[in-house]
């Protein structure tokens, strides 16, 4: 009993540490990838190849004055970045990064928890993420922030539905809500091959869920001067930033688990394949950001409600038909 507790604690600490490091280095990777796509070099001054840049950035943000604008709702203002980061981190409790390995003669499953309603839990936490943003927008007593928060709420609500429906077709094919079972069900054929439409819908909604280009309306710099984090600085801003990047990792990890066969791959090396697939997705996020311009707000809404939801629903019905017949 006690050793189980210690095992979960150690796994939790490792996952949080890896995620924080990964999110910090994702900011660096994103800057380099964007730079190369724009024929620039990107950061290369701090350390060899600029590899110490995220550490320098973190130190800078830590040393900033911790200010608070006049008229903000103090408690919520300080709570919002925490919610934003916590909900992003919580999704990783369920993601299986590998099968069961033996460490010091003890079988260790490479996911923190195996919940039988895993996907429902994930969807619930990705919906909670909107609270961090909308509370930040409301608490900072700034019209631009409030507009960003409202946009993000509307966007998340409209894109959560097609995301849920596309995930439902995966649940139908796997016959289980448990993520470990879903990964096991893909050992023969990944769901991206058997169900490409629902993968595509998940991909599009994932971009909207993480507020990334081309759906980055809540923080549109040109219209909303940064949106919900306009009034944040120093470490509080860094937490929003980390939250955003961990969130990208989270939706990518879910996509890998649901559609790309999780940790399976040639040789079934536990952690390697999962992280390679994850890196592919993260690169896709950066690539799309370098290419596509931001949508207008009405385009975003009409695309979500008039295209994605009907297509997702039809796809679900077709999937259900095939599963019933074959």
């Amino acid at each position, binding site marked *: 009993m006690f050793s189980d507790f210690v095992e979960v604690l150690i796994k939790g600490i490792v996952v949080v540490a890896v995620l924080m490091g990964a999110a910090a280095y994702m900011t660096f990777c994103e800057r380099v990838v964007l730079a*190369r*796509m724009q024929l*620039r070099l990107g950061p290369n001054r701090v350390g060899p190849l600029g590899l110490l840049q995220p550490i320098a950035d973190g130190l800078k943000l830590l040393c900033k004055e911790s200010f608070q604008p006049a008229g903000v709702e103090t408690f919520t203002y300080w709570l919002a970045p925490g919610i934003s980061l916590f909900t992003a981190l919580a999704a990783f409790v369920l993601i299986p990064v590998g099968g069961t390995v033996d460490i010091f003669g003890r079988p260790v499953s490479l996911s923190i928890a195996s919940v039988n309603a895993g996907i429902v839990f994930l969807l619930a936490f990705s919906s909670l993420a909107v609270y961090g943003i909308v509370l930040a927008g409301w608490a900072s007593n700034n019209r631009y922030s409030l507009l960003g928060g409202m946009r993000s709420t509307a966007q998340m609500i409209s894109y959560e539905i097609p995301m849920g429906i596309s995930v439902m077709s995966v649940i139908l094919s796997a016959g289980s809500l448990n993520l470990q079972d879903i990964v096991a069900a893909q050992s023969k054929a990944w769901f991206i091959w058997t169900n490409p439409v629902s993968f595509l819908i998940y991909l599009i909604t994932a971009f909207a869920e993480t507020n990334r280009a081309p759906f980055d309306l809540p923080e549109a710099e040109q219209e909303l001067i940064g949106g919900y984090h306009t009034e944040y600085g120093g470490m509080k801003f860094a937490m929003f930033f980390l939250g955003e990047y961990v969130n990208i990792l989270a939706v990518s990890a879910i996509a890998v688990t649901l559609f790309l066969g999780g940790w399976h791959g040639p040789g079934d090396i536990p952690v390697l394949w999962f992280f390679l697939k994850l890196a592919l997705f993260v690169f896709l996020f950066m690539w799309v950001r370098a*290419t596509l311009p931001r949508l207008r707000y009405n385009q975003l809404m009409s695309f979500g409600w008039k295209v994605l939801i009907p297509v997702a629903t039809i796809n679900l019905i077709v999937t259900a038909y095939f599963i019933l017949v074959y």
Partner: protein
Amino acid sequence: MKKSALAQVFSMLRGLLIVFKYALKKPVTRRYPEEKPKLPIRSRGRHYLTKWEDGRERCVGCELCAIACPSQAIYVKPAQNDPDNPHSRTERYASDFQINMLRCIYCGLCEEACPTGAIILSSEFELSGYTRESLIYTKEQLNEKFPGESGRDPKREI
């Protein structure tokens, strides 16, 4: 004309491909302090007071450059040459010659005004200092250390 939905999707995918192609190209950035640019020969940087082939100064102390200078950055103090040991080829030479590099606008009018081709603008552009005084260049700093140091042919007439 509005494109059809399918055409729009295809143009998006084409855009992604084009961006990826650019990621494989060599960046155009020049890493300046490590990688110095080679400026064209006629570009205007710091001044030199050039010498003849035999090591004598070209400057005859006529002060035309100081008159031509639009920002009054040049100070010339003419003096009589010692006939036994002349500094220049004529009767007079510049016993003191100063250019305030902070005032200079690198227009090249002094170079054009000079009747002997003594003052020229080289293509060295990395001019900075910690004090204002250090940027008033004296005659010792402006003089060529040896004929042709500035890159101009010391045999030329002007």
